[in-house]
């Protein structure tokens, strides 16, 4: 059987995306359909086709789809869905970017708290408290540690309830006082922390993991960081995807987005898990792609920024970047390299040449 060389899916996707936002006439819509048809064939065995299908799904939301085409990618992709709770557990426990980044941050926080009788930890976007519970377990048995005051800021009340339950059930060698604050961080009045902080002693450590990029406006990101700075924490840890989805130019944003998730998908392919979970995870990231590509500028929530921009904001607020990371892993496998970045002063999780995730640590000089 004779075949002929086909162009890469990315090459085709680049052409399709050039028509955004209002150049999708009937001919261009047909191009989208042709590409989707190509991607759906053999999607299970090709990460690139899976990724492209998610991009097409996002773009079709914008342009509408041809009614004559029998493939509805939503129906087709639905078979890859995995329950949220299963995915969540997988992300936390198995997905190397989340698991190892949180482990590194937690180890670094432990080393800063060691030697103190009390400490205050403020977690922005605490969610169900998984990372913080792991941190408390790491601190368990720390000599001389008597009390941890945990402040958890989180817009979803149900998640806070779960976190509260987890902390209260934890059997630890020290006392934990938990202050759940149900609020979007950009709307939170930091002066409300005064009564809590006035009752505590020991270092204040602030952490945010994959939360600040959800603050929609730049001005609010600056404001939040400045408010954190005003608390004079001993350290402020940020864990953020290193990509520019704040970019207003659609075509550039698409390229950034493709590059970012392409490398994430490469890692997912290496995870020793069954295809059901791997495809479910890819679909999970598809929702982020939907947001970055299909969402309007004002309603997008996955507005990631590269690490150097977070550093700029930290420096403007009066922080300095510090390299006090403890427990830098030597080899976490999956083609991920964890390296110190002398430019940002943080730690990068790299796949080939692409930095997918960055961890930053900022401190106050006075």
């Amino acid at each position, binding site marked *: 059987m004779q075949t002929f060389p086909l162009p890469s899916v990315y090459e085709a996707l680049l052409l399709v995306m050039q028509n955004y936002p209002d150049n999708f006439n009937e001919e261009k819509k047909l191009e989208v359909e042709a590409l989707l048809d*190509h991607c759906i064939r053999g999607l299970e065995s090709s990460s690139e086709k899976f990724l492209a299908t998610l991009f097409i799904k996002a773009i079709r939301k914008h342009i509408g789809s041809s009614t004559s085409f029998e493939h509805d990618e939503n129906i087709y992709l639905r078979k890859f869905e995995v329950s949220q709770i299963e995915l969540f557990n997988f992300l936390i426990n198995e997905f190397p970017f989340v698991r190892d980044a949180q482990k590194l941050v937690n180890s670094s926080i432990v080393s800063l708290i060691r030697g103190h009788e009390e400490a205050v930890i403020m977690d922005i976007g605490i969610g169900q408290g998984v990372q913080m519970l792991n941190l408390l377990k790491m601190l368990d048995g720390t000599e001389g540690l008597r009390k941890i005051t945990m402040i958890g800021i989180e817009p979803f009340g149900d998640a806070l309830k779960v976190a509260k339950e987890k902390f209260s059930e934890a059997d630890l060698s020290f006392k934990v006082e938990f202050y759940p604050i149900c609020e979007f961080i950009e709307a939170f009045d930091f002066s409300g922390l005064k009564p809590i902080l006035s009752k505590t002693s020991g270092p204040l450590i602030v952490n945010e993991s994959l939360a600040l990029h959800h603050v929609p406006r730049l001005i609010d990101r600056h404001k939040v960081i400045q408010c954190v700075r005003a608390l004079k924490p001993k350290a402020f840890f940020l864990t953020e995807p290193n990509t520019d989805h704040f970019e207003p130019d659609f075509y550039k944003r698409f390229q950034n987005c493709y590059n970012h998730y392409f490398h994430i998908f490469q890692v997912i392919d290496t995870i020793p898990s069954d295809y059901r979970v791997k495809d479910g995870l890819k679909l999970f990231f598809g929702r982020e792609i939907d947001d970055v590509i299909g969402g309007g500028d004002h309603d997008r929530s996955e507005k990631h920024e590269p690490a150097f921009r977070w550093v700029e904001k930290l420096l403007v607020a009066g922080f300095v970047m510090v390299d006090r990371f403890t427990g830098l892993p030597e080899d976490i496998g999956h083609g991920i390299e964890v390296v110190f970045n002398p430019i940002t002063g943080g730690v990068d999780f790299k796949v080939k040449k692409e930095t997918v995730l960055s961890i930053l640590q900022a401190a106050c000089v006075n």
Partner: protein
Amino acid sequence: MQVFTSPIISLDYDSVKKVLYQNWDGFATSIQFREAIDKTVDFVKQNPVLYIVSNTTTQRPVGPEDGKYAASKMPVLFSSGVKAMAFVLPKNVLTKLALGNFAKEQGMPSNVRYFDDLQEAEDWLFTF
């Protein structure tokens, strides 16, 4: 001899060599495309066509359903006497993908091949 023409195709027949040329051009609506396919099939049924050259160099993408429609007509062409069919590949990236989808659809038998230029296609055809 031109046997059919529309804004998206010119069907030309070489009665000496018994070759039917499909010269596609530009974007076709579903109706235009299927009309061109039907005209091809009708002509092949009524004339001693031994070879077909489908020149898609400047063709724009065809929708998946129309691709399937064209693939479904291939057996009729061969059962009507066509010995071999050569495609000249499109320049457009997305048309190439669509043609790839079409090729998978119809299974790419050994008497159907794809070429970068017309001369190569004709050289191969006349080996049958």
